[in-house]
């Protein structure tokens, strides 16, 4: 995902000298071409995320279109108040990019696991919140967030799921149908959507026909696709590599209950309000914390066979 983001951003930078990329001293080797080709559009502020975010706000006030970049929680939680007060309240054209969504940096430990960012960023007014699942979604959303001129958050992941063949089907604020189905809908975001596809493949052999939506834009949430899923498939399971409180599952649940689009059954899969302390790579930790395809299959069977 990271390489796709940089590729897309480099293309945009070539067209728009007001595009600025700021890093908080992370991305070894990743920005070599960008910084060589566009030295005036690249800035490494050092290990200083609060200042990175404030500088981004100031530059956006002067008409720049700024992307801030770091890993895990550094560009989000470390400087949360700067995002809230300086970027969001002033409605500035800044996109905050974090590489390392969920357990991407598995073995590095809890400090590097971005597992509450979706919940927390979602709570900030004016902020668009995105977590693409596939490479093509990363590219398309990078472009769309740049064009949107709104404060926004782009959560990138080390893993990715198989996505669509054409970028034209990807639209900010619109869920992407990855797979048609009529028995139940899995709504997911981020690379973990891959686990949903694996689960759907396994269950297909047992006669279950599952729909999968990539809800790459968590805010604003695509209500229409949820309505459709409730009407046409009856049940919803949400899947996210994030705390179960406040993230994608919460957003879908809030919408369903307040709009009276009540599914026949509803289940959320996410991290169960705990910190990770076990060492492991992303796949290991997904299984350990019961977010993997096995857990999805188990949950769906239990729901559909009730």
């Amino acid at each position, binding site marked *: 995902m990271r390489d796709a983001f940089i590729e897309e951003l480099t293309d945009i930078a070539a067209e728009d000298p007001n595009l600025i990329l700021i890093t908080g001293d992370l991305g070894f080797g990743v920005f070599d071409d960008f910084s060589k080709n566009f030295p005036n559009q690249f800035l490494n502020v*050092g290990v200083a995320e*609060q*200042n990175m975010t404030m*500088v981004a*706000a100031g530059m956006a*006030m*002067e008409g720049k279109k700024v992307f801030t970049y770091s890993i895990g929680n550094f560009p989000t939680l470390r400087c949360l108040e700067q995002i809230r*007060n300086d970027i969001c309240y002033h409605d500035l054209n800044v996109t905050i990019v974090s590489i390392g969504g969920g357990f991407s940096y598995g073995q590095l430990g809890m400090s590097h696991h971005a597992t509450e960012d979706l919940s927390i960023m979602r709570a900030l007014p004016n902020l668009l919140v995105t977590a693409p699942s596939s490479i093509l979604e990363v590219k398309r959303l990078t472009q769309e967030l740049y064009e949107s001129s709104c404060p926004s958050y782009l959560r990138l992941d080390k893993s990715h799921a198989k996505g669509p063949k054409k970028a034209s089907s990807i639209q900010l604020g619109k869920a992407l149908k990855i797979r048609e189905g009529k028995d139940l809908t899995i709504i997911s975001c981020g690379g973990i959507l891959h686990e949903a596809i694996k689960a759907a493949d396994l269950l297909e052999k047992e006669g279950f026909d599952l729909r999968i939506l990539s809800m790459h834009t968590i805010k604003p949430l695509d209500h229409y696709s949820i309505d459709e899923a409730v009407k046409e498939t009856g049940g919803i399971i949400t899947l996210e590599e994030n705390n179960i409180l406040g993230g994608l599952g919460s957003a879908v649940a809030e919408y369903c209950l307040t709009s009276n689009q009540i599914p026949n059954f509803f289940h959320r899969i996410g991290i169960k309000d705990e910190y990770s302390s076990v060492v492991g790579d992303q796949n290991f930790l997904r299984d350990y914390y019961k977010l993997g395809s096995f857990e999805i299959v188990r949950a769906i069977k239990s729901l559909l066979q009730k």
Partner: protein
Amino acid sequence: MFKNIDTSELAKRIRLHAINMTMLGGSSHVGSVLSMADILAVLYGKILKINPKDSNWKDRDKFILSKGHAGAGVYAVLAELGFFPVDLLKNHYKNGSIFSGHVSHRGVPGVELSTGSLGHGLGVACGLAYASKLDRKEKKVYVLLSDGECDEGSNWEAILFSSHHKLKNLVAIVDYNKIQSLASVEETLNLEPFVEKWEAFGWKVIDIDGHNHQEIEKALMVNSEKPKCIICNTIKGKGVSFMENNVLWHYRSPKGEEYERAVKELNNA
């Protein structure tokens, strides 16, 4: 820049507005406004290239009040200079008003940045100054900090950044009245040697009397290849004898006799 402005008169009017506004709304921080009134008067009256008829003029200088709790002072000076009618100041701190206790830009022409949480202004000023430098624009960025605010680590990130990038279009002004929220700066978290700290971080530092208009103007006019910090030695509550150097007036709003006495003292000054 404004012509023929009597900065002493402007400072007096900022102070009188501050007394009125804090009395009417029952708000805090009158001491913090009185402390910086002279700085605001010289900055707005003599230095800033701004236009009240076009508050979004793209080539304007930028002023950020990082010590947002003294927002009443900025509303007052903007009203005095014609950014909006003076009469609106009576709405400060009132239900339904746009003039919040900590300065907010929404709906208020001339306010560049909403602040209130300390340690935000200088970093945003760095971004403004860096962008102007990239665009080879002449405009300058001024940011006014409180002394207590310098406890915030985010400022020191921005202080490092400014000198590293040689932001000579950036001016930080510290209202060094030596009293913070609960007690003196010295007792709370000592900043001394303050001048030497800024110098060690690569800034041009000018240490002045923050109530002497000539000194303020002269310091603001000094050219430097480095970012410039003007340490303004001030008196919290300046201009009202019973508020001067008294931490109580960080929070208390003047009422009844206190109000009458404060207005009388300022008018007779």
